[in-house]
């Protein structure tokens, strides 16, 4: 009996040790980048242009990351939510539903480099756009859409049946019910999903190497609102190197004495952004929940 108790204690201790170890590794990774960046980091790093002769900054690159994220979300959010509504509210058990589900699983399994090749064949070569932010964003949508679709579906399914029944009982059509009774309740879950998937979009690099390009970053003039001018930061048809790709490029083609510091700081910015996305999604989800239930 003593042996059994000892085994229990030992197992519990091991599980605690494993958990502590994993959390410690994560803390160590974050601490490493923070400590490596602290001596050289300043807020100016976030806004100034890259340089080979001094630390410089990642201003245009960070902008590209945010711009690509916005563009990707612009395409995938409406599709994801509408598709989620179909899967949660209309889809039956039929073959069509199976095909859609199987497609979802297949596409989530495709390696990002293969998605990058696909984007290259379709959005760079076949369309003759060359490397572009638009092509990059559409490529990112390939990852993002199945994820968003699933998260929206889950959020909509989680809405209690009474909400629907009450609305239908009042004589509302199904669509009216979805719009006015189901969606408002599901919104917090959907928003949490959107923000969470944003993290993945922000960090993706392999798929963008062949689609959004590896241009030497230029100085952006934000007053240039001409969407067809490849020099304008607002133009979707210009190439756009994002922060993740920039870290990759720093390693492979970095020219200058500050490559390591700049890459360390960029990595920290990326990690911090992911942390922010995470906290934001929790906070937003909770805040929206409160508003919805307060109504």
């Amino acid at each position: 009996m003593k042996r059994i108790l000892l085994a229990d204690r030992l197992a519990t201790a091991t599980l605690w040790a494993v958990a502590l170890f994993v959390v410690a590794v994560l803390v160590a990774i974050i601490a490493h980048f923070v400590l490596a960046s602290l001596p050289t980091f300043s807020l100016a790093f976030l806004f100034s242009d890259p340089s080979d002769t001094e630390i410089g900054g990642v201003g245009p690159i960070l902008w590209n990351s945010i711009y690509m994220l916005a563009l990707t979300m612009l395409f995938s959010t409406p599709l994801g939510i509408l598709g989620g509504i179909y899967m949660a509210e209309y889809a039956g058990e039929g073959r069509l539903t199976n095909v859609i589900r199987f497609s979802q699983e297949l596409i989530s399994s495709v390696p990002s480099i293969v998605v990058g090749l696909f984007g290259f064949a379709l959005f760079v070569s076949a369309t003759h756009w060359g490397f572009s932010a638009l092509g990059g964003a559409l490529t990112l949508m390939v990852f993002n859409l199945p994820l968003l679709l699933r998260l929206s579906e889950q959020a909509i399914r989680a809405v209690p049946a009474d909400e629907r029944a009450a609305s239908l009982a009042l004589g509302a059509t199904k669509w009216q019910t979805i719009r006015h009774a189901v969606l408002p309740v599901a919104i917090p879950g959907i928003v949490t999903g959107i923000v969470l998937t944003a993290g993945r979009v922000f960090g993706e690099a392999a798929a963008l190497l062949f689609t959004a390009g590896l241009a030497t970053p230029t100085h952006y003039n934000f007053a240039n609102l001409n969407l067809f001018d490849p020099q304008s930061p607002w133009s979707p048809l210009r190439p756009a190197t994002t922060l993740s790709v920039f870290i990759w490029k720093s390693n492979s083609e970095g020219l200058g004495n500050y490559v390591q510091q700049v890459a360390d700081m960029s990595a920290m910015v990326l990690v911090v952004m992911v942390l922010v996305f995470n906290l934001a999604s929790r906070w937003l989800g909770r805040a929206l929940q409160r508003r919805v239930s307060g109504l």
Partner: protein
Amino acid sequence: MTSSAKRLGALALAATAFVAACGGGTAATSPSAAGSSAAAGASTGAAASGVAGPSACVDGSITTSGSTALQPLVDAAGKAYTAACPKSTISVQGGGSGTGLTQVLQGAVQIGESDVTAESKLKPDEASQLVDHVIVRQGWVMVVNNDVTGVTSLTTQQATGIWTGTITNWKAVGGPDQAIVLILRPASSGTRATFKSVVLKGANEASGQALTEDSNGAVTTAVGTTPGSTSVIGFAYYQANKDKVTAVGLDGVQGSVATMLDGTYKLQAFGHMYSKGQPDGLTKSFLDYMMSDPIQKTLIPSLFYAPAQ
């Protein structure tokens, strides 16, 4: 402040010392001009200052893509052109020589840069559609980890022995008793193709015993941190990392713009810009500008390339 201006500034400063140290030769850079452009670039950041614009502007918008080895040069030239001609746009992409040739052939870009000739990559009927513009000579230098002391130059035979895997210890070439770690660029890269034809005379590298790293920067880092390692990198990358790696001459000649120009340094090749058919409009104007004095005599030496002629 643009990155190219600053890169220009720093490199121009270094080039002044570099060219001067090598005895100048036929490199036509005026040290004072390069020096002042560096100061301007570093302090005010005026785009590609010190490099005069084209004699006549053509409006329009073109995109180029291709060789990452040529990207800094074309990028700087593009910025100098558009600084003088604000109504024109020149977007310069990397992607690799293969990408450049593919995209110019497809018409996705107007100019494709390549380290190697189109004939060596494309089918004859495809290559014949492209027009070659030789704009520059680029040089490469063999580098070793700083712990490999006593090896200042390798003969072609020694280098071949090391790269094909028959020489595996630095002792055999006058260095310390230490295993040689060979670091290669991808077999498809222009750097490796040039080295293979110029130095190895077509012999196959011992890639099964080597490391392969993606690009100049990754190779430089790997050589700088791996004891006993050696590889080949572009001139500009060596200049920017002189403290991290040690250069090794070829057949007694040290690589420099001067020795490249007088032909004694063999590890060099032409850089090409390809257009589909005869160029016109801004494409032609930009290609002409690449061959003009501001680029050939001022910009090119400051970035450690040598003029095409």
